[in-house]
């Protein structure tokens, strides 16, 4: 899922300074699962913002709404009838959702309340970790199911570098397990170390963001 983290309250208050009537829009998708932008977070953020603005003597009127998904056109429609009555939308969906709101409501100011961070998993309650960088040409079959792009700090294709620590951590940060250490251990347990013995050639990054903004067009699904 796509992970995000709410921006610090002061930053959000800074963005909202010119306005006194806003819509705060959450999303029931990924950001609900990572507890950053769902209905509950909308409620909590709204009350913190109200309190802070009341303390400043400049009350803020907030309409709270949580859409099914902000990244699908049909789910954005319900906002249309009332949007005109507000000065701005503060969205706490991922960057894609926030942009889609801006795209659908061209004359509305749309503000990001969330920093979108990565594609990851819930390792355990309260801990989310990056797993994929959406490179567009998956090599997990060669690397024991562990991604060298996302999980090695240098995205090496023939790691590990010389910086792996004695306890198998990455040189960059003790909190980061060395991706290549994991790849090798996994290949060994799968009896696939011969995958490692072969040098992986230079990767084409054309399928990743480096090739420009990407699109997938499925004729079979288009009307």
């Amino acid at each position, binding site marked *: 899922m796509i992970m995000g983290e709410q921006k610090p309250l002061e930053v959000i208050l800074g963005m909202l300074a010119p306005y006194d009537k806003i819509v705060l829009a959450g999303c029931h998708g990924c950001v609900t699962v990572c507890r950053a932008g769902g209905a509950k977070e909308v409620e909590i953020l709204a009350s913190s913002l109200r309190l802070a603005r009341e303390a400043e003597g400049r009350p803020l009127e907030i309409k709270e709404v949580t859409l099914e998904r902000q990244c699908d056109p049909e789910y954005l429609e319900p906002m249309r009838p009332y949007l005109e009555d507000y000065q701005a939308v503060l969205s706490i969906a991922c960057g894609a959702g926030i942009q889609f709101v801006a795209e659908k409501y061209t004359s509305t100011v749309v503000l990001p309340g969330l920093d979108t961070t990565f594609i990851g998993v819930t390792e355990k309650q309260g801990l989310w970790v990056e797993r994929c960088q959406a490179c567009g040409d998956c090599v997990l079959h060669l690397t024991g199911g562990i991604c060298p792009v996302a999980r090695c*700090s*240098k*995205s*090496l*294709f*023939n*790691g*590990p*570098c*010389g*910086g*792996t*620590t*004695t*306890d*198998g951590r990455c*040189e*960059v*940060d003790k909190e980061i397990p*060395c991706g290549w*250490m994991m790849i*090798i*251990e996994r290949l060994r347990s799968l009896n696939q*170390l011969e995958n*490692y*013995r072969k*040098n*992986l*050639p*230079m*990767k084409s*990054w054309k399928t990743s963001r480096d090739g420009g903004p990407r699109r997938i067009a499925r004729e079979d699904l288009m009307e």
Partner: protein
Amino acid sequence: MKTASRLERVFDEGHFAVTTECGPPRGSDPEVIRKKGELLRGSVDAINVTDNQTSVVRMASIASCAILKEMGLEPIVQMVTRDRNRISLQSDILGAAGLGLNAILCLSGDHQTFGDDPDAKNVFDIDSIQLIELVKMMRDEGKFPSGKEIQGPPNLFIGAACNPFAEPFEIRPIRLAKKVDAGVQFIQTQCIYNLDRFEKFMDEVRKLGLHEQVKILAGVTPLKSAGMAKFMKKNVAGMDIPDDVIQRMADTPKEEQAAKGIEICVESIERLRKVEGVAGAHIMAIEWEKMVPVIAEKAGLLPRPDISVPSD
């Protein structure tokens, strides 16, 4: 095909090679690099110039190498993939050869979070092994990865680094084999303090027959003080300094610790020289370059063979 590298000649003539490295200035004054070059003249066969090591900005390695070359010294340009994509790498490889440099050390580089610009975007378009392949392809096939022909291929002697002490240990000889497959011709290792472990590493290297396919220069760095030893052990990833080495330093009075560090370094070289498959020593004394001739002398590595490399 042979390159014009003095280092390659030294190996070919069967000598035990000696290399060192120096860090370029954090400024544009060429005198800094000239002074270092002068200190090292005659004591080594080739001098690496680091490429923004630990991600701290310094004068470009290629430029510093050109300055050393002008002085009649034999530089090895270091090139990291952290800061350059394949377009820039190919261009710099041509540039290095165009400036008359004869050897290149292919590295991925320390992550930028270590340096002064942790906010920088890193590149890592390719890794060190793929860089070795790139240089080899450009040199031997006279082709760019695009398949287009090179007018005047870069004739560079190809090197890389190896850390026998980083986890996972069992994989390190295999990773060296990957570099050999890629086409590496010489290897400079991480500083060796744990000689027992290095010898075990070399046992594996010999079992794989790698010592016959690549020239391995054993890396050594003189410890300046017990404090430095402890600091390095704790803070430098992949650095293995055994407690008895630290103890030897700590048992020495402070004012004599530097001399003790030199003594340990010389002893290490003497022992490493006897390890089958070790073809040379790489003496790293960054910001202590003046000790390199002292160490080379004490270790019996002087004079360096007089090799006149044909100017091509």
